[in-house]
Protein backbone atom coordinates (compact mmCIF):
# COMPACT_ATOMS: atom_id res chain seq x y z
CA UNK A 1 0.00 0.00 0.00
CA UNK A 2 1.39 3.44 -0.88
CA UNK A 3 1.90 6.11 1.80
CA UNK A 4 -0.94 8.16 0.32
CA UNK A 5 -3.29 5.18 0.28
CA UNK A 6 -2.43 4.57 3.93
CA UNK A 7 -2.96 8.24 4.85
CA UNK A 8 -6.36 8.29 3.14
CA UNK A 9 -7.31 5.02 4.88
CA UNK A 10 -6.34 6.46 8.25
CA UNK A 11 -8.30 9.63 7.54
CA UNK A 12 -11.34 7.56 6.55
CA UNK A 13 -11.20 5.41 9.67
CA UNK A 14 -10.20 8.00 12.26
CA UNK A 15 -11.89 11.17 10.98
CA UNK A 16 -14.52 10.64 8.29
CA UNK A 17 -16.15 7.73 10.13
CA UNK A 18 -16.88 10.02 13.07
CA UNK A 19 -19.51 11.95 11.20
CA UNK A 20 -20.22 10.11 7.95
CA UNK A 21 -22.20 6.90 7.96
CA UNK A 22 -22.15 5.51 4.46
CA UNK A 23 -19.23 4.43 2.32
CA UNK A 24 -20.76 6.47 -0.48
CA UNK A 25 -20.47 9.67 1.58
CA UNK A 26 -16.89 8.86 2.57
CA UNK A 27 -15.99 8.12 -1.05
CA UNK A 28 -17.52 11.48 -1.99
CA UNK A 29 -15.46 13.42 0.55
CA UNK A 30 -12.25 11.64 -0.48
CA UNK A 31 -12.93 12.46 -4.12
CA UNK A 32 -13.67 16.09 -3.30
CA UNK A 33 -10.46 16.36 -1.30
CA UNK A 34 -8.37 14.72 -4.02
CA UNK A 35 -9.62 17.20 -6.61
CA UNK A 36 -9.29 20.17 -4.26
CA UNK A 37 -5.69 19.24 -3.47
CA UNK A 38 -5.00 18.91 -7.18
CA UNK A 39 -6.39 22.45 -7.69
CA UNK A 40 -4.29 23.72 -4.82
Amino acid at each position, binding site marked *: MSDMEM*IFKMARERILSQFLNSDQEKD*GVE*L*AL*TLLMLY*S
Partner: protein
Amino acid sequence: MSDKLKLYDERVKRLKDAIELREPDRVPIYGLVDNWALSYYGITLEEALKDVELEYKAYSKALTDFPFDGALASRVTFPLNFVYSLGGGIFNNATETIQIATGHSEIMAVEEYDELIADPMKFIRDKILPRKHKIFQEGTVEEKFAKYANSLSIFFQFGQTTKMLAERFKTEHGLPITNAGVNHFMPGDMIMDYLRDFKGIMRDIKKCPDKVAEACMAMVDPMVKDTFGKMRTVSDDKYVHLYLHLPQFIRAKEFEKVYWPSFKKYVEAVAARGVKILILFEKNWEHLYEYIQELPKGSVIGFFEEDDLRKAKKALGKTMCIAGGLKTNDLYYGTKEKCIEVAKGLIDDLAPGGGFVFAPDKVLATKNDAKAENLKAVTEFIVEYGSK
Protein backbone atom coordinates in the same frame (compact mmCIF):
# COMPACT_ATOMS: atom_id res chain seq x y z
CA MET B 1 -42.69 34.63 4.16
CA SER B 2 -40.21 37.40 4.95
CA ASP B 3 -39.51 40.23 2.49
CA LYS B 4 -35.98 38.95 2.04
CA LEU B 5 -37.11 35.45 1.15
CA LYS B 6 -39.65 36.86 -1.32
CA LEU B 7 -36.89 38.95 -2.87
CA TYR B 8 -34.69 35.86 -3.01
CA ASP B 9 -37.34 33.87 -4.86
CA GLU B 10 -37.92 36.75 -7.33
CA ARG B 11 -34.22 36.88 -8.12
CA VAL B 12 -33.92 33.11 -8.49
CA LYS B 13 -36.86 33.15 -10.91
CA ARG B 14 -35.45 36.10 -12.86
CA LEU B 15 -32.19 34.26 -13.48
CA LYS B 16 -33.96 30.96 -14.16
CA ASP B 17 -36.18 32.57 -16.78
CA ALA B 18 -33.14 34.05 -18.51
CA ILE B 19 -31.18 30.77 -18.46
CA GLU B 20 -34.18 28.85 -19.77
CA LEU B 21 -34.34 31.35 -22.64
CA ARG B 22 -37.50 33.14 -21.59
CA GLU B 23 -37.81 36.88 -21.14
CA PRO B 24 -37.75 37.69 -17.41
CA ASP B 25 -39.51 40.66 -15.78
CA ARG B 26 -36.33 42.63 -16.29
CA VAL B 27 -32.75 42.05 -17.43
CA PRO B 28 -30.97 40.21 -14.60
CA ILE B 29 -27.69 41.58 -13.30
CA TYR B 30 -25.08 39.09 -12.11
CA GLY B 31 -22.50 39.92 -9.45
CA LEU B 32 -19.37 38.45 -10.99
CA VAL B 33 -17.41 39.58 -7.93
CA ASP B 34 -14.32 37.99 -6.46
CA ASN B 35 -11.53 39.64 -4.47
CA TRP B 36 -12.58 43.13 -5.66
CA ALA B 37 -14.95 42.95 -2.67
CA LEU B 38 -11.96 43.19 -0.35
CA SER B 39 -10.44 46.33 -1.84
CA TYR B 40 -13.93 47.88 -2.10
CA TYR B 41 -14.42 47.39 1.62
CA GLY B 42 -10.84 48.35 2.41
CA ILE B 43 -9.26 45.17 3.74
CA THR B 44 -6.48 42.91 2.53
CA LEU B 45 -6.71 39.26 1.55
CA GLU B 46 -4.65 38.36 4.61
CA GLU B 47 -7.11 40.17 6.91
CA ALA B 48 -10.07 38.44 5.26
CA LEU B 49 -8.51 35.00 5.69
CA LYS B 50 -8.05 35.58 9.43
CA ASP B 51 -11.56 36.85 10.21
CA VAL B 52 -14.70 35.30 8.71
CA GLU B 53 -16.97 38.04 10.04
CA LEU B 54 -14.79 40.71 8.42
CA GLU B 55 -14.78 38.69 5.20
CA TYR B 56 -18.59 38.54 5.31
CA LYS B 57 -18.84 42.30 5.91
CA ALA B 58 -16.66 42.96 2.87
CA TYR B 59 -18.62 40.66 0.57
CA SER B 60 -21.95 41.86 1.95
CA LYS B 61 -21.10 45.45 1.10
CA ALA B 62 -19.79 44.56 -2.36
CA LEU B 63 -22.79 42.42 -3.21
CA THR B 64 -25.58 44.54 -1.74
CA ASP B 65 -24.46 48.08 -2.59
CA PHE B 66 -25.46 47.17 -6.15
CA PRO B 67 -28.75 45.59 -7.30
CA PHE B 68 -27.37 42.17 -8.22
CA ASP B 69 -29.79 39.30 -8.78
CA GLY B 70 -27.22 36.63 -8.05
CA ALA B 71 -23.56 36.37 -7.17
CA LEU B 72 -20.62 34.09 -7.72
CA ALA B 73 -19.51 33.61 -4.12
CA SER B 74 -20.20 34.65 -0.55
CA ARG B 75 -16.50 34.93 0.28
CA VAL B 76 -12.96 34.54 -1.05
CA THR B 77 -13.58 31.81 -3.58
CA PHE B 78 -10.78 29.39 -2.74
CA PRO B 79 -9.97 27.85 0.67
CA LEU B 80 -6.54 29.45 0.84
CA ASN B 81 -5.97 28.57 4.50
CA PHE B 82 -6.40 24.94 3.50
CA VAL B 83 -3.91 25.42 0.64
CA TYR B 84 -1.34 27.02 2.97
CA SER B 85 -1.76 24.16 5.47
CA LEU B 86 -0.69 21.71 2.75
CA GLY B 87 2.65 23.49 2.54
CA GLY B 88 2.24 26.45 0.24
CA GLY B 89 0.25 25.72 -2.88
CA ILE B 90 0.52 27.02 -6.42
CA PHE B 91 -1.01 30.47 -6.04
CA ASN B 92 0.92 33.68 -6.45
CA ASN B 93 0.86 34.97 -2.89
CA ALA B 94 2.25 38.34 -3.90
CA THR B 95 -1.06 39.41 -5.39
CA GLU B 96 -4.36 40.17 -3.68
CA THR B 97 -6.07 37.75 -6.08
CA ILE B 98 -6.22 33.99 -6.57
CA GLN B 99 -3.90 33.61 -9.51
CA ILE B 100 -1.86 30.52 -10.26
CA ALA B 101 1.87 31.26 -10.31
CA THR B 102 2.81 30.29 -13.85
CA GLY B 103 5.43 27.77 -14.82
CA HIS B 104 5.13 25.53 -11.77
CA SER B 105 2.51 23.04 -12.86
CA GLU B 106 4.46 20.56 -14.98
CA ILE B 107 4.52 17.82 -12.39
CA MET B 108 3.36 14.94 -14.53
CA ALA B 109 5.65 13.39 -17.13
CA VAL B 110 4.34 12.71 -20.62
CA GLU B 111 5.11 9.02 -20.07
CA GLU B 112 2.53 8.95 -17.28
CA TYR B 113 -0.55 9.48 -19.45
CA ASP B 114 -1.33 5.75 -19.42
CA GLU B 115 -1.32 5.71 -15.65
CA LEU B 116 -3.58 8.76 -15.55
CA ILE B 117 -5.95 7.16 -18.04
CA ALA B 118 -6.11 3.83 -16.19
CA ASP B 119 -7.27 5.37 -12.90
CA PRO B 120 -7.15 9.17 -12.74
CA MET B 121 -7.98 9.63 -9.05
CA LYS B 122 -5.59 6.93 -7.87
CA PHE B 123 -2.81 8.44 -10.01
CA ILE B 124 -3.51 11.94 -8.70
CA ARG B 125 -3.68 10.76 -5.10
CA ASP B 126 -0.63 8.46 -5.12
CA LYS B 127 1.71 10.24 -7.51
CA ILE B 128 0.71 13.88 -7.98
CA LEU B 129 -0.35 15.00 -4.50
CA PRO B 130 2.96 14.00 -2.83
CA ARG B 131 4.85 15.88 -5.53
CA LYS B 132 2.75 19.00 -4.96
CA HIS B 133 2.33 19.26 -1.21
CA LYS B 134 5.08 19.49 1.40
CA ILE B 135 3.07 17.74 4.12
CA PHE B 136 3.22 14.50 2.14
CA GLN B 137 6.94 14.68 1.44
CA GLU B 138 8.73 14.22 4.76
CA GLY B 139 8.34 12.13 7.88
CA THR B 140 6.66 8.87 8.77
CA VAL B 141 3.19 8.00 7.59
CA GLU B 142 1.81 8.90 11.04
CA GLU B 143 3.55 12.28 10.91
CA LYS B 144 2.20 12.98 7.44
CA PHE B 145 -1.26 11.89 8.57
CA ALA B 146 -1.14 14.27 11.55
CA LYS B 147 -0.46 17.21 9.26
CA TYR B 148 -3.17 16.05 6.86
CA ALA B 149 -5.62 15.78 9.75
CA ASN B 150 -4.93 19.42 10.54
CA SER B 151 -5.61 20.33 6.90
CA LEU B 152 -8.85 18.34 7.02
CA SER B 153 -10.11 20.32 10.00
CA ILE B 154 -9.47 23.55 8.08
CA PHE B 155 -11.22 22.10 5.02
CA PHE B 156 -14.34 21.09 6.97
CA GLN B 157 -14.48 24.44 8.73
CA PHE B 158 -14.29 26.24 5.37
CA GLY B 159 -17.12 24.09 4.02
CA GLN B 160 -19.34 24.76 7.00
CA THR B 161 -18.75 28.49 7.09
CA THR B 162 -19.26 28.80 3.32
CA LYS B 163 -22.70 27.18 3.64
CA MET B 164 -23.49 29.42 6.61
CA LEU B 165 -22.47 32.56 4.73
CA ALA B 166 -24.58 31.66 1.69
CA GLU B 167 -27.55 31.14 4.01
CA ARG B 168 -26.92 34.56 5.57
CA PHE B 169 -26.96 36.17 2.14
CA LYS B 170 -30.34 34.50 1.56
CA THR B 171 -31.99 35.46 4.83
CA GLU B 172 -30.33 38.84 5.45
CA HIS B 173 -30.15 40.17 1.90
CA GLY B 174 -32.39 38.02 -0.30
CA LEU B 175 -29.39 37.42 -2.56
CA PRO B 176 -28.78 34.06 -4.26
CA ILE B 177 -25.18 32.88 -4.12
CA THR B 178 -25.32 30.48 -7.05
CA ASN B 179 -22.12 28.62 -6.14
CA ALA B 180 -23.15 25.12 -5.02
CA GLY B 181 -19.59 24.29 -4.01
CA VAL B 182 -19.01 22.63 -7.37
CA ASN B 183 -16.28 24.65 -9.06
CA HIS B 184 -14.69 22.66 -11.81
CA PHE B 185 -12.33 22.97 -14.68
CA MET B 186 -12.84 20.69 -17.63
CA PRO B 187 -10.38 17.81 -17.93
CA GLY B 188 -8.35 19.62 -20.61
CA ASP B 189 -7.96 22.60 -18.28
CA MET B 190 -7.05 20.34 -15.38
CA ILE B 191 -4.24 18.76 -17.37
CA MET B 192 -2.94 22.17 -18.44
CA ASP B 193 -3.23 24.01 -15.14
CA TYR B 194 -2.34 21.24 -12.70
CA LEU B 195 -0.47 18.40 -14.42
CA ARG B 196 1.43 19.37 -17.57
CA ASP B 197 1.48 23.20 -17.54
CA PHE B 198 0.96 25.27 -20.67
CA LYS B 199 4.07 24.26 -22.62
CA GLY B 200 3.60 20.60 -21.74
CA ILE B 201 0.03 20.28 -22.90
CA MET B 202 0.61 22.30 -26.07
CA ARG B 203 3.39 19.82 -26.95
CA ASP B 204 1.17 16.88 -26.01
CA ILE B 205 -1.70 18.07 -28.20
CA LYS B 206 0.69 18.05 -31.17
CA LYS B 207 2.61 14.87 -30.36
CA CYS B 208 0.13 12.59 -28.57
CA PRO B 209 -3.37 14.00 -29.01
CA ASP B 210 -4.99 10.57 -28.59
CA LYS B 211 -3.48 10.28 -25.11
CA VAL B 212 -4.68 13.75 -24.14
CA ALA B 213 -8.18 12.99 -25.43
CA GLU B 214 -8.30 9.65 -23.63
CA ALA B 215 -7.07 11.19 -20.38
CA CYS B 216 -9.76 13.88 -20.62
CA MET B 217 -12.49 11.28 -21.14
CA ALA B 218 -11.19 9.19 -18.22
CA MET B 219 -11.68 12.14 -15.89
CA VAL B 220 -15.34 12.77 -16.70
CA ASP B 221 -16.86 10.03 -14.54
CA PRO B 222 -14.99 11.07 -11.35
CA MET B 223 -15.98 14.69 -11.99
CA VAL B 224 -19.65 13.80 -12.42
CA LYS B 225 -19.46 11.68 -9.27
CA ASP B 226 -17.88 14.59 -7.40
CA THR B 227 -20.55 16.97 -8.68
CA PHE B 228 -23.44 14.90 -7.42
CA GLY B 229 -21.63 13.94 -4.23
CA LYS B 230 -21.74 17.66 -3.42
CA MET B 231 -25.17 18.42 -4.91
CA ARG B 232 -27.37 15.90 -3.16
CA THR B 233 -30.46 17.83 -4.15
CA VAL B 234 -31.03 19.93 -7.24
CA SER B 235 -32.49 23.39 -6.78
CA ASP B 236 -33.04 26.41 -8.97
CA ASP B 237 -30.75 28.64 -6.93
CA LYS B 238 -27.58 26.53 -7.08
CA TYR B 239 -25.47 26.03 -10.16
CA VAL B 240 -22.33 24.18 -11.15
CA HIS B 241 -19.60 26.71 -11.98
CA LEU B 242 -17.06 25.91 -14.73
CA TYR B 243 -13.96 27.92 -15.60
CA LEU B 244 -12.51 27.17 -19.03
CA HIS B 245 -8.90 28.03 -19.80
CA LEU B 246 -7.36 25.83 -22.49
CA PRO B 247 -9.59 26.41 -25.55
CA GLN B 248 -8.46 30.00 -26.06
CA PHE B 249 -5.02 28.65 -26.98
CA ILE B 250 -5.96 25.87 -29.41
CA ARG B 251 -7.43 25.62 -32.88
CA ALA B 252 -10.93 24.33 -33.58
CA LYS B 253 -9.75 20.94 -34.85
CA GLU B 254 -7.54 20.45 -31.79
CA PHE B 255 -10.46 21.44 -29.56
CA GLU B 256 -12.69 18.95 -31.35
CA LYS B 257 -10.19 16.16 -30.85
CA VAL B 258 -8.94 16.61 -27.28
CA TYR B 259 -11.25 18.93 -25.32
CA TRP B 260 -14.78 18.87 -26.69
CA PRO B 261 -15.82 15.22 -26.16
CA SER B 262 -15.18 15.27 -22.40
CA PHE B 263 -16.58 18.80 -22.00
CA LYS B 264 -19.81 17.85 -23.80
CA LYS B 265 -20.14 14.59 -21.85
CA TYR B 266 -19.76 16.33 -18.50
CA VAL B 267 -22.18 19.16 -19.28
CA GLU B 268 -24.77 16.74 -20.67
CA ALA B 269 -24.53 14.52 -17.57
CA VAL B 270 -25.05 17.49 -15.28
CA ALA B 271 -27.81 19.12 -17.33
CA ALA B 272 -29.67 15.80 -17.56
CA ARG B 273 -30.23 15.99 -13.79
CA GLY B 274 -31.76 19.48 -14.10
CA VAL B 275 -28.75 21.44 -12.83
CA LYS B 276 -27.91 24.82 -14.32
CA ILE B 277 -24.32 25.38 -15.35
CA LEU B 278 -22.54 28.73 -15.20
CA ILE B 279 -19.58 28.76 -17.57
CA LEU B 280 -16.85 31.37 -17.83
CA PHE B 281 -15.77 31.20 -21.47
CA GLU B 282 -12.46 32.99 -21.05
CA LYS B 283 -11.00 35.11 -23.87
CA ASN B 284 -12.65 34.59 -27.30
CA TRP B 285 -14.72 31.56 -28.30
CA GLU B 286 -16.06 32.65 -31.69
CA HIS B 287 -14.06 29.95 -33.48
CA LEU B 288 -15.82 27.30 -31.39
CA TYR B 289 -19.47 28.31 -31.65
CA GLU B 290 -20.30 25.40 -33.96
CA TYR B 291 -19.44 23.08 -31.07
CA ILE B 292 -20.87 24.84 -28.05
CA GLN B 293 -24.18 25.44 -29.76
CA GLU B 294 -24.70 21.69 -29.23
CA LEU B 295 -24.67 22.01 -25.46
CA PRO B 296 -27.99 21.20 -23.75
CA LYS B 297 -30.57 23.87 -24.45
CA GLY B 298 -31.71 26.11 -21.61
CA SER B 299 -29.18 24.77 -19.11
CA VAL B 300 -26.16 27.02 -19.49
CA ILE B 301 -25.46 30.64 -18.65
CA GLY B 302 -22.35 31.52 -20.63
CA PHE B 303 -20.21 34.49 -19.63
CA PHE B 304 -18.21 35.59 -22.66
CA GLU B 305 -15.15 37.70 -22.03
CA GLU B 306 -13.96 39.00 -25.39
CA ASP B 307 -16.63 37.86 -27.82
CA ASP B 308 -18.98 40.26 -29.57
CA LEU B 309 -22.10 39.40 -27.56
CA ARG B 310 -24.37 40.25 -30.46
CA LYS B 311 -22.62 37.64 -32.62
CA ALA B 312 -22.64 35.21 -29.69
CA LYS B 313 -26.38 35.62 -29.18
CA LYS B 314 -27.06 35.14 -32.87
CA ALA B 315 -25.04 31.91 -32.96
CA LEU B 316 -25.80 30.52 -29.53
CA GLY B 317 -28.98 32.23 -28.38
CA LYS B 318 -31.18 29.19 -29.06
CA THR B 319 -28.91 27.08 -26.85
CA MET B 320 -27.70 29.16 -23.93
CA CYS B 321 -28.20 32.37 -22.02
CA ILE B 322 -25.55 34.92 -22.97
CA ALA B 323 -24.01 36.96 -20.15
CA GLY B 324 -21.49 39.75 -19.81
CA GLY B 325 -21.11 42.88 -21.88
CA LEU B 326 -19.46 45.66 -19.91
CA LYS B 327 -15.70 45.77 -20.11
CA THR B 328 -13.86 46.15 -16.81
CA ASN B 329 -11.69 48.62 -18.69
CA ASP B 330 -14.72 50.89 -19.10
CA LEU B 331 -15.91 50.17 -15.58
CA TYR B 332 -12.64 51.47 -14.18
CA TYR B 333 -11.29 53.98 -16.69
CA GLY B 334 -14.53 55.09 -18.35
CA THR B 335 -17.17 57.55 -17.30
CA LYS B 336 -20.60 56.77 -15.87
CA GLU B 337 -22.11 58.07 -19.09
CA LYS B 338 -20.02 55.74 -21.24
CA CYS B 339 -20.92 52.73 -19.08
CA ILE B 340 -24.62 53.59 -19.28
CA GLU B 341 -24.40 54.07 -23.04
CA VAL B 342 -22.85 50.60 -23.44
CA ALA B 343 -25.47 49.05 -21.15
CA LYS B 344 -28.31 50.70 -23.10
CA GLY B 345 -26.98 49.29 -26.36
CA LEU B 346 -26.67 45.81 -24.87
CA ILE B 347 -30.21 45.87 -23.54
CA ASP B 348 -31.62 47.19 -26.81
CA ASP B 349 -29.88 44.50 -28.85
CA LEU B 350 -29.76 41.49 -26.55
CA ALA B 351 -32.66 41.66 -24.10
CA PRO B 352 -35.65 41.22 -26.43
CA GLY B 353 -36.79 37.60 -26.29
CA GLY B 354 -34.82 36.89 -23.13
CA GLY B 355 -31.68 34.83 -22.70
CA PHE B 356 -29.43 37.73 -21.65
CA VAL B 357 -27.89 38.56 -18.29
CA PHE B 358 -25.89 41.72 -17.72
CA ALA B 359 -22.47 41.42 -16.06
CA PRO B 360 -18.93 42.71 -16.43
CA ASP B 361 -16.84 41.00 -19.11
CA LYS B 362 -14.73 39.26 -16.48
CA VAL B 363 -14.70 38.51 -12.78
CA LEU B 364 -13.99 41.57 -10.67
CA ALA B 365 -10.81 40.46 -8.97
CA THR B 366 -8.73 43.57 -8.35
CA LYS B 367 -9.29 47.19 -7.40
CA ASN B 368 -8.67 48.23 -11.02
CA ASP B 369 -11.53 46.13 -12.37
CA ALA B 370 -14.27 48.61 -11.49
CA LYS B 371 -14.93 52.01 -9.98
CA ALA B 372 -17.81 51.72 -7.56
CA GLU B 373 -19.56 54.83 -8.88
CA ASN B 374 -19.57 53.46 -12.41
CA LEU B 375 -20.85 50.07 -11.28
CA LYS B 376 -23.59 51.75 -9.24
CA ALA B 377 -24.66 54.03 -12.06
CA VAL B 378 -24.84 51.29 -14.65
CA THR B 379 -26.59 48.68 -12.48
CA GLU B 380 -29.18 51.23 -11.31
CA PHE B 381 -29.75 52.21 -14.93
CA ILE B 382 -30.36 48.57 -15.89
CA VAL B 383 -32.95 48.10 -13.15
CA GLU B 384 -34.93 50.98 -14.69
CA TYR B 385 -34.25 50.57 -18.39
CA GLY B 386 -34.14 46.79 -18.41
CA SER B 387 -37.63 46.30 -17.01
CA LYS B 388 -40.53 45.23 -19.19
